[in-house]
């Protein structure tokens, strides 16, 4: 999953502070951001396969050799050639980190000060190594020509570059044939091949270069052989020969794998598979076919195993299948973590919202579980080879067992593996143990918590990318980095585990710990957690968003107690935020939760215990608190004029105090219609449609509608209200009940008309078909029986024109 800052955010319409029309709403989630991927493809230890780590969206990375395997090999070859104990770093510095212009300047001026202390340069400058020096100079000139003339607005670049490269191709050929050392000879030939390709000169290449290539290169294990195969293939006119050389390039070079992958489509590969290729080429063709399969590819893996039973590509391809299964079995559309969260609170109504999809989803899950068993069987049948290879297959099987729900089986396999020497494999073992432990044991047990803590901290020690820095506050504009997405996915496993653990605590009824883990994870889920840039750290919605959805008032009491706890276990210390929000921020939430349950007296007690200046000083949404009386519906109800007595923004405490006062009034005058009418008006003001909606909710959107709370196009869920308070908030049910009570108590036509108008208005507000199309019995009653009232006249002039 993606970290919080990995979002394309267009958040304006969701924020209370930014109510202006916007062309875009909500975050745009891309598939990789929602992936729950806990099988690390690096566990396969397959060299050069990183660009093909599974991603549903990107198919492959655009970084050809992120581990720099080819570059390392080249430096090692140079190290062997120099035979002078030169550190690899010195060679890499010149080969890959020195701008060609800087190198050529040093050559021209014979000024080597900039390379002082570099052993490779010192070696190159020795007279007996002049031939190597000359090679490197020419190689840098070629590099400069390829990339140095880089004013993209200059239209003359292309011609000049081609002229120079054509000249280099011939010079390299000349030097290749004249070179005394095979090491330099082969490198000159590779350079000649490359230049010939860039100037698109296949005639020169086939006449002059191919014969030399065929004589010198095929049995050469040098890294440049793989590179030369690529250009040989690209220059080749015969399509079969072309394919053979490209496949060789894939096999022999990590850096060229990606470009070869992109040169073939599935149809070409199918034709090549029956073209009578040698075993190695056929193996690579089958690998490419598997890599190009966005769906199931087990049949290709089985083909590969028949061609080369111990193919070194097999583990990486198995890892891809496991990652696909994670997508299909664990993504939010299926049973991914956010959806698990939803399942904890999902109502029957939500569950049945899309029966057709629900049916397909269930069938797909069944198919995918069956496929999981097939893959597991294949994994078991492949578990041969070196010790590390066998460890991979055990880790793979354990993960598949976990995905299939057999956590005990997974745990047994993982326990049977001693700590592994490979860092990647050891990380996978710890991830598997964390998942299995959380599923099998009682996470509330201190000893289990300590065990989980140890797994997590060891994971963070092994991989610095797992560091749990606090979620960043997002800057105003963020450009989503698609290329980094896959690699980011590899760096958030501990966060995903925290989310997983949070879910286990939620199921165990420990909402407080679940929230702390959720916040610590800092991952984006399908819930609205607040993406604010302008809130203070001590009262940021993100810190209470989880509790806004799941907590009870008692949860907040536990949280406040935990906050003050003088001594914590290692696990508790681990999940404690690095900086706590203000205690009053939690109290504000507790009071709000009580308001949603209409427990106004208890809410008043909570708000009264807070700093009275909190809503002015720390509360980010102060501008959205109402002004004036809680019974003032001016600005909401067309026929009521706003009160002239507008004051400063009113704090939540003052509003709650007014609500308690109204309740006291009703208790004193249980048969008084006016008193009940005032209470009903106040309740209406607390709804989505009222002036004091902020008493209920921490956010409001123009696009938000009660029927959109769950049917919002699948983008986000804004609130996690419980169903009763949701009906009050969006459907005004509590207010309507009191308006009806007014009807039963009223002995005054004006008051009755008033209540009827309000009931009519509530119906119009809350019907799916809003406005004038709503048919209302209340309006009919008003017309027939109360047209003589003053209110009817006001109502008529405001609403019925």
């Amino acid at each position, binding site marked *: 999953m993606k970290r919080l800052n990995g979002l394309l955010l267009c958040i304006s319409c969701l924020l209370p502070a930014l109510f202006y*029309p916007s*062309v*875009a*709403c909500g975050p*745009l*989630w891309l*598939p990789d951001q*929602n992936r729950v991927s806990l099988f690390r493809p690096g566990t396969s230890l397959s060299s050069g396969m990183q660009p093909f780590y599974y991603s*549903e*969206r990107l*198919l492959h990375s655009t970084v050809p050799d992120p581990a720099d395997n080819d570059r390392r090999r080249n430096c090692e070859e140079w190290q062997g050639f120099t035979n002078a104990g030169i550190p690899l770093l010195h060679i890499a510095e010149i080969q890959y980190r020195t701008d060609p212009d800087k190198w050529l300047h040093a050559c021209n001026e014979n000024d080597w000060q900039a390379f002082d202390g570099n052993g490779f340069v010192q070696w190159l400058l020795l007279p007996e190594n002049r031939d190597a020096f000359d090679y490197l100079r020419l190689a840098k000139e070629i590099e400069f020509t390829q990339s140095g003339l*880089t004013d*993209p*607005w200059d*239209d003359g670049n292309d011609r000049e570059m081609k002229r120079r490269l054509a000249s280099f191709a011939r010079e390299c050929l000349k030097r290749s044939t004249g070179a005394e050392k095979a090491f330099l000879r082969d490198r000159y030939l590779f350079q000649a091949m490359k230049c010939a390709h860039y100037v698109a000169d296949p005639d020169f290449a086939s006449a002059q270069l191919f014969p030399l290539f065929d004589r010198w290169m095929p049995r050469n294990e040098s890294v440049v052989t793989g590179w030369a195969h690529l250009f040989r293939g690209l220059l080749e006119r015969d399509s079969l020969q072309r394919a053979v050389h490209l496949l060789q390039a894939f096999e022999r070079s990590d850096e060229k794998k990606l470009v070869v992958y992109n040169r073939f*489509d*599935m149809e070409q590969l199918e034709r090549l598979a029956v073209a009578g290729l040698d075993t190695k080429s056929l193996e690579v063709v089958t690998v490419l076919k598997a890599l*190009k*399969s*966005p*769906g*199931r590819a087990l049949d290709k893996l089985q083909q590969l195993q028949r061609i080369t039973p111990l193919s070194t590509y097999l583990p990486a391809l198995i890892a891809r299948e496991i990652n696909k299964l994670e997508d*299909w079995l664990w993504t*939010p*559309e299926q049973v991914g973590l956010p959806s698990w969260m939803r399942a904890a609170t999902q109502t029957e109504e939500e569950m049945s919202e*899309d029966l*057709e*999809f629900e*049916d*397909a*989803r269930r*069938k*797909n899950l069944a*198919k995918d579980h069956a496929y999981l068993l097939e893959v597991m069987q294949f994994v078991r049948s492949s578990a041969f080879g070196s010790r590390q290879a066998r460890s991979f297959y055990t880790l793979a099987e354990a993960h598949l067992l976990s995905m299939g729900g057999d956590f005990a089986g997974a745990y047994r396999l993982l326990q049977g593996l001693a700590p592994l020497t490979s860092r990647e494999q050891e990380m996978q073992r710890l991830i598997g143990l964390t998942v299995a432990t959380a599923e099998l044991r009682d996470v509330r047990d201190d000893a289990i918590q300590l065990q989980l803590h140890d797994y997590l901290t060891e994971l963070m020690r092994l991989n610095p990318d797992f560091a749990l820095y606090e979620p960043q506050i997002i800057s105003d*504009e963020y*450009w989503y980095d698609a290329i980094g997405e896959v690699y980011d996915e590899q760096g958030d496993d501990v966060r995903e585990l925290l989310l997983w653990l949070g879910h286990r605590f939620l199921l165990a009824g420990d909402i407080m710990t679940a929230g702390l883990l959720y916040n610590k994870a800092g991952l984006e889920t399908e819930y609205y957690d607040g993406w604010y840039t302008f809130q203070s750290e001590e009262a940021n919605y993100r810190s209470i968003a989880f509790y806004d959805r799941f907590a009870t008032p008692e949860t907040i009491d536990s949280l406040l107690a935990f906050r003050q706890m003088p001594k914590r276990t290692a696990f508790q210390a681990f999940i404690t935020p690095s900086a706590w929000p203000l205690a009053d921020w939690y109290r504000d939430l507790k009071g709000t939760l009580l308001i949603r349950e209409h427990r106004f007296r208890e809410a008043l007690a909570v708000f009264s215990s807070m700093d009275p200046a909190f809503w002015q000083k720390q509360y980010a949404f102060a501008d959205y608190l109402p002004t004036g009386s809680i019974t003032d519906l001016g600005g909401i109800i067309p026929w009521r004029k706003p009160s002239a007595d507008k004051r400063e923004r009113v704090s939540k405490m003052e509003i709650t105090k007014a609500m308690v006062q109204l309740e006291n009034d009703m208790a004193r005058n249980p048969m008084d219609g006016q008193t009940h009418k005032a209470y009903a008006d106040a309740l209406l003001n607390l709804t989505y449609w009222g002036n004091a909606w902020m008493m209920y909710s921490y956010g409001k959107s123009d696009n938000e509608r009660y029927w959109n709370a769950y*049917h919002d*196009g*699948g*983008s986000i869920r804004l609130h996690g209200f419980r169903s009763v308070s949701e009906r009050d908030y969006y459907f005004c049910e509590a207010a309507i009940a009191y308006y009806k009570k007014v009807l039963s108590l009223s002995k005054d036509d004006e008051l009755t008309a008033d209540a009827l108008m309000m009931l009519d208005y509530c119906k119009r507000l809350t019907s799916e078909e809003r406005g004038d199309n709503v048919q209302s019995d209340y309006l009919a009653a008003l017309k027939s029986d109360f047209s003589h009232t003053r209110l009817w006249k006001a109502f008529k002039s405001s609403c019925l024109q």
Partner: protein
Amino acid sequence: MKLEMRRLKTGCSLIDNMNAKSILPLAAMILLLHSCGHDHAQRSFYYWKTTWRVDSVEQAQMQAYGVNHLYVRYLDVDWSDNLQIPVPVSQLTPVDTYRSLELGAPSHTPVVFITNRTFDKIEAAWSDSLAVKLARKIRHVADELANATNQRAAFSEIQIDCDWTPSTREKYFHFLERFKSEFPRKEITVTLRLYPYTYPQTMGIPPVDRATLMCYNLGRLADKTEVNSVFNFAELTKYLNLVEKYPLQLDVALPLFGWHAWFRGNRLKGIVYPRELEQPGLDTLLLQADGNRWLVSEDVSLKTKYLRAGDVLRNEFPDKQGLVRAAERLKKQLPAIRRVAFFHWEPNNFTDYHETIERAFALY
């Protein structure tokens, strides 16, 4: 809807490829229009490819539609993170002859698409440099086309296409002013999305001679309940109703493109393009759900996508009737339209739209 898009076969006569019923009235209509003697709006298409490749069938097709103008994308400009400067991207290269500009399309307008992030990233001073460099580049592309075709294709207008935002407005508008000074005798126009058309107070009025109102991309692609995010006449009307008069003279462009929005449950999984659905046997796996929605009945791998049973594809090609109604509505709203265009010239995409194109053009 037919998911497998039909292709025009190269080398066939125009009559082979177009519905004969549609051609005869079209020819008659063209004759009639040409004999009427009053000014008609020019008929145009956007040519939005990286190579100029218009074969004889397409030339004849353009002629049959009475196309007498093309907006030709010359190049894009995007920000290079490596170089930290704006760079030209995907420059048009002449592959075939350029003769079609003689054939019923005597004029063309070079168009340059500039990404908004270019203006987000560049220093203010670069707005000047970009104008100078882009002017030189446009002349260079025009020269290349002229060399390749042995004819100089004259143009009197250059169009800039950019989805600017309030935060990039100042730099974009400054660039436009500077760009105009590079071509004082040519008309500089811009494309105008419906949002800046509707909210000029927020988005500003570009300092140019005219604008082309791009009447598409109206809805939210990611919203499962959206009818059609590319084009929806009802949505277009809502925008048009909000504006009485825009301060610039406007031409209009209507969409002739589409795709399939791919949903799993309520979540958008991606876009599936028509060519991706040209796979044998696929049509039997797609069941029409309702209107423009298709239900995937079995798991199926496309070249790069794995569709699952239960997924939904929402066809977002524009509704034909809606396009004609839009053309009628726009004519009423903007009586001074000088040119009506379709975006974009891709005959494979509009094999079913011949009559629609004729009817829309005939209104002007």
